[in-house]
Structure formats: structure tokens, C-alpha cells
């Protein structure tokens, strides 16, 4: 079946299977920043924005996004690079596999919450798992990036 969808501000028409999930559709079209990991909707690695809200692309059927707007990290290169530099400076990245999903959620939080407290930051990012860093470096980086030290 065909869907028309705006991916990173570009309108595209894609053929998708009826039971195909968004993560697979995006990856099959070269958007490889969208990682496939837990497949049980709990790790946050596949995070993209659906109508500017962070969602798990492993749980969204591709047919349901017909006519909608999807943003991946490729669609926000400037903001992503800016935050990635802070992440690196804080030593908050090792293998980097979780970074695209994590960055998308941090940017979504920046758009949604004004001057979040440490508790609010931790709560907002609970759905992003990282098996390398132990989270403290990430928390430092997010606070630095948002200027809420």
C-alpha cells in the first residue's frame, strides 16, 4: 500500500506492507540513525518525532502515518550536532548506539519544557536506555545544553 508522508520536511510517497512498522520503513529508506534494539517498546533507541512529539517508531504501524509529519535526527542536523558536541565534551558517549534516539528525546524535551528541573529531566528521559555510560554524564550534558546547571 502507498503512503504519503512528510519525512524531514520532504513529502515522499512510499510503498509499505500492511503490518510494517515505522522503524523498518525508515531504515529501508536509508534513515539508518533510527536504531532497532529492544523491539519491546522500552529502550527508546528508535525514537522519532510524529507531528513533533517523540514516539517509538518500533510501535507505530507505517500505514498509520499516512498524511503525517515525521522527523528523524537527519531532519534536525544543526541542533543534533550542537547537543552531540556537549555530549562528547562531557564524556557522555561511548558506543553511541543509543545517541540518535536519546538526542531526539532531549530536543523534544527542550521544545516542550521550559527550564526543567533535574527531576523533570530524569523523568522525561526515563524511556531512553543506555548500557555504557551510567547516565550521569548524559545528565551533566543535558543540563549544560539546556543551561539549567
Amino acid at each position, binding site marked *: 500500500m502507498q503512503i504519503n508522508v512528510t519525512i524531514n520536511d520532504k513529502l515522499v510517497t512510499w510503498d509499505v506492507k*500492511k503490518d510494517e*512498522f515505522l522503524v523498518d520503513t525508515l531504515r529501508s529508506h536509508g534513515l539508518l540513525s533510527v536504531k532497532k534494539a529492544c523491539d*519491546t*517498546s*522500552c529502550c527508546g533507541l528508535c525514537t522519532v518525532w510524529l507531528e513533533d512529539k*517523540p514516539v517509538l517508531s518500533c*510501535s507505530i*504501524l507505517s500505514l498509520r502515518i499516512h498524511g503525517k509529519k515525521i522527523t528523524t535526527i537527519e531532519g534536525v542536523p544543526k541542533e543534533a550536532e550542537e547537543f552531540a558536541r556537549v555530549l562528547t565534551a562531557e564524556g557522555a558517549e561511548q558506543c553511541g548506539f543509543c545517541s540518535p534516539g536519546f538526542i531526539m*528525546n532531549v530536543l523534544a524535551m527542550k521544545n516542550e519544557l521550559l527550564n526543567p528541573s533535574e527531576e523533570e529531566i530524569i523523568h522525561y528521559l526515563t524511556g*531512553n536506555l543506555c548500557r555504557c555510560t551510567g547516565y550521569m554524564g548524559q545528565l551533566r550534558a543535558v543540563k549544560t545544553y539546556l543551561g539549567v546547571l
Partner: protein
Amino acid sequence: MFTLLDLVQPDNLAEAYQILSDKRNNTILGGCTFLKMGSKRIGTAIDLSNLKLSYIKEQAGFIEIGAMTSLREIETHKRLMECFNGVLPKSVHNIIGVQFRNSVTVGASVYSKYGFSDLITTMLALNTEVELYKSGRMPLIDFLNKPKEKDILVRLWIKVDNRKAAYLNLRNSASDFSVLNVAVSKLEDQWTVVVGARPRRAAIATSASAALSKGELSIEEIEDAAKRAAEELSFGTNMRGTANYRRALCQVLVKRGIMEVLQCK
């Protein structure tokens, strides 16, 4: 992973119900996060996204919540934060992560009668009704006790009253399912104690609720009611905790819930 042969997005409820009734394996889609964990073979999947059922509004003394409303909308809705001491947003606050709650729908959580549901426990402690396309409007407790039959949950109605309420749970980790969850509410002298994730579906502790509803409460009477709740409900064992652990936990959480409600303004 489930498989599906077709996916439709009907324009009205009558059409959706007709398709649902056509075949046994036709299924309504919610957020799909739980559905995808199983291996169900779905004939036609019915997506209600076109029916404008994603909303929360207040009218005629009720808060009306459309079936396609996400848990995140419940969590961040200003009016819901004010009502019943913000117990509804609190109950969904720790479910996995923001991305997950942006996808999961209220309708699927309630219609599926999940045992682990935090939302059902809380709604049961409030004056909640469900509206089904075929069976009409009925109290949530009647819906939960009703045998499963094919229908579409359209919206939920929560009576806005002066009820004070508290929600508590225990999780092994912040974003895991609850090992046990408890909601306690009080409207004038009428108390309602609900315990969920037992791991069976949420149930009202009727004896404990009745014991509390007798008037002024001493600490001994509160402890007695908490003990009653633990004794009158059944508990089971799963990977998150044993039945005995849950029973002990129930007594503690119910007592804390009652104390919290007594302090509510």
C-alpha cells in the same frame, strides 16, 4: 509479532463496528505497544484515528476522555491535574517513557482490562463510566466484570465531584510495571479502596471500603481496614513478586493511601 492481512481506517463508528463484527479475528488497534508483543493473527486491523476520539473535555459535570487519547495527554492535562488531587496524571506518570505514553491509548488500556494497568485502578476509585458503541454507557466496574464480547470503547466519563483521592504503587524499577498499585478515594463519608496489578485486574476491596465509611477514623481502624483489604482480595505470583509479598505490600500501601487521602485538601 502479530500479523495482519488488512488495515482500515473507517470514517464512522458504525462502519468500524460492522468490520469488527464481520470476522472473529478482526481487531481494533490502540497504540499497538502491547499487541506487538504477542503473535496474534489479525484479519482486518481497525484504526480509529479518523474518528476524532483523541480529546479530553469537561461538560455537564463530567470529564469526557476519548478512547484514542494518549496516556501522555492524561499526564499533562491541566484540568486533570486539578481534579481528585491529580490522581489520574500521577497514575500514568511512570509508565515506561514519554515516547511510550505518547503512543499508548486510554481506550486500549481500559478495554483490554489489563491486570497490570495503573489507569484502571485509579479510574475504579473514581466515579467512572465507560461508553461502548454497542452496549452503551455503564459503570467501569460493571464493564470489568462483564464477559468479553466484541465492542468498541468510545469514551470514558468521569464524574467531577469533591472526591479526594490518592494513588500509590511499588515498582522494582522506575519504569517497570507495578508490582502492586493502590488507589483510595473518599467522597464525603464514602471510601473506595482499589487494588490492582495483583497481578490480576484491579478490584474494589469492598469490606475495607465499608469499614472506612463508618465515620471518624482512628489509626487502629485505618490499620484494620488495610488488613481487611489484604485479606479479602486474592493475589497471585509472577516474575515481579509472590502472592505473599503482594498481600503484605497491599496492607502497607492501602494504609498509606488512606492516610494520604485524610491529608488531602
